[in-house]
């Protein structure tokens, strides 16, 4: 099973639990190294380029884009021109709507996807029956399901959640399957010899053994959720950050568009961070193993 996909999943699994020094030492080291200053330089150049290209000189088509100053002012303004800033309720309403959709879809996807993935990895017959279906459906881009989702599912809310769900669902199944398959056969043999019952094998061999991969799947799935949420909200939503991005385009409220994009980035970043933290908690044994204690 040494396909290239497997190796990347493994590598990112290894990255998820990194070696930890006490934080004070880490901060001191970091401050002494050139890295923070180079990072500041890089970010500085980015914002400066934004400012110069758009605000100051309006180079070529950059003149059409929202400027750094405008967008920041709008974001921090208590009385924003286009109605969305850190101090308006509408801003948080959109954030809340999107977050609620993503989390509902994500939890549905993992509660369904993990058991299916485990069964597929564990039970040959089940694998034989389900894998062909998965293989046929998987190449179809998630976003191509939007029309069908709107058509099949009732209301406006459920199609959006359903589509977001679908994105994380496939990823979760696939990674769980890979995770179960990645468990060294020797552990199954040991468990059989030790007289483990099937439920023992499930809880004490398969689940902990596949967990690193499963969490990699969760992280990718979380990204996929935000990704398809935006598309679904653009095409059929009436609220949420994705909807807002399109609306601001439609009504030419460009500074707000930048705010929404930045907020989307932030939300995506925070939610994968959350998944990572939970994963590290659940896999302490791995942290110790990798730290080489």
């Amino acid at each position: 099973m040494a396909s290239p996909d497997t190796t990347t999943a493994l590598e990112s699994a290894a990255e998820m639990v990194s070696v930890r020094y006490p934080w004070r030492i880490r901060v001191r080291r970091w401050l002494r190294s050139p890295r923070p200053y180079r990072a500041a330089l890089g970010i500085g150049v980015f914002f400066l380029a934004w400012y110069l290209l758009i605000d100051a000189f309006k180079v070529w088509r950059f003149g059409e884009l929202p400027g750094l100053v405008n967008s920041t002012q709008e974001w921090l303004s208590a009385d924003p021109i286009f109605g969305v800033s850190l101090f308006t309720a509408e801003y948080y309403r959109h954030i809340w709507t999107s977050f609620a959709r993503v989390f509902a879809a994500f939890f549905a996807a993992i509660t369904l996807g993990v058991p299916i993935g485990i069964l597929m990895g564990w039970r040959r017959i089940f694998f034989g029956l389900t894998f062909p279906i998965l293989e046929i459906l998987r190449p179809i881009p998630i976003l191509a399901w939007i029309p069908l989702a709107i058509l099949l599912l009732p209301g406006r809310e459920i199609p959006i959640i359903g589509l977001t769900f679908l994105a994380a669902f496939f990823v979760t199944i696939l990674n769980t399957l890979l995770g179960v398959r990645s468990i060294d056969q020797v552990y199954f043999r040991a468990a059989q010899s030790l007289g483990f019952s099937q439920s023992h094998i499930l809880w004490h061999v398969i689940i902990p053994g596949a967990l690193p991969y499963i969490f990699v799947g969760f992280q990718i799935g979380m990204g996929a959720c935000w990704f398809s949420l935006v598309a679904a909200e653009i095409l059929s939503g009436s609220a949420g950050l994705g909807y807002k991005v399109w609306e601001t385009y439609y009504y030419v409220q460009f500074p707000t568009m930048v705010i929404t994009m930045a907020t989307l980035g932030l939300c995506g970043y925070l939610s994968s961070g959350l998944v990572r933290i939970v994963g590290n908690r659940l896999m302490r044994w791995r942290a110790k193993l990798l730290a080489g204690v």
Partner: protein
Amino acid sequence: MEHKASIQPVEGGEVKLRNVTKQFGEDVAQTTVIQDCTFEVERGKFTVVIGPSGCGKTTLINVIAGYETPTSGEVVLDGATVSGPGPDRLVVFQETALFPWMTTLNNVMYGPVVQRDSQAADIEKKAHELIELVGLSEFSHKYPIQLSGGMQRRAELARALINNPRVLLMDEPFRGLDAMTRQLMQEYLLRLFEGSGRTILFVTSEIDEAILLADKLLVLSRAPTHVKATITVDLPRPRNLEMLTSRRYAELKSEALSILYQEAVSAFAAGSNAAADLVEAFEQRQSVQGKTDK
């Protein structure tokens, strides 16, 4: 396994380490891996370094090879201070470091090709000779993944030898091979190098392997590493595996082991899990010796 071609002696090859110290990290996280290490690798001799696992043997090789700069002190090769990696000191690595994307032939040819010091046809001819010498003629167009563990080690040997290094640094080259293949490789190495006048620095954690191969045995302390003792192995050459049962061998072995034991005890006292194994090993041996002495 008879070979027509043989290994020619080269000029030089004397390595001196003078008060080499190597530290990693800084502040609280600073560790000293090598401390004030001084020894000499004699020209044309087989010098073996042995020490408890995790004692900094690999770092020592890295410093001599020039991959790491010593924090203080210097490594001197034939009178010149070593300042970086170079084809005059080649390493045969612990886990094989053949380039997986090149065939055996291209791997062997790599050194001379990038050094651009001779004609392509000459290089290829010489590479074929060496590949034949290590018994891999049929495998010159295979990729490393298609070779067995023992073959990979031999290919790596050929890759090093084509550059005529003044010193060959071997960092636990037979680690990971099974006991039988390992013995075959040891015999093979002896046949290849005995009488060739090559300088070799060989690192290992197996005492039997160390004594079988060595002219001079350096026993290292636990980290921070320095040379704890130097033992001259005066077993006659050519050597073979039967010498492992000789009386002189047993004496040399117990001499080396008693030094290693002291090191393991202090490592264990410092809380090392790996050292626990060793301390127990030695205590067992001591009780055995105690009984036989009676």
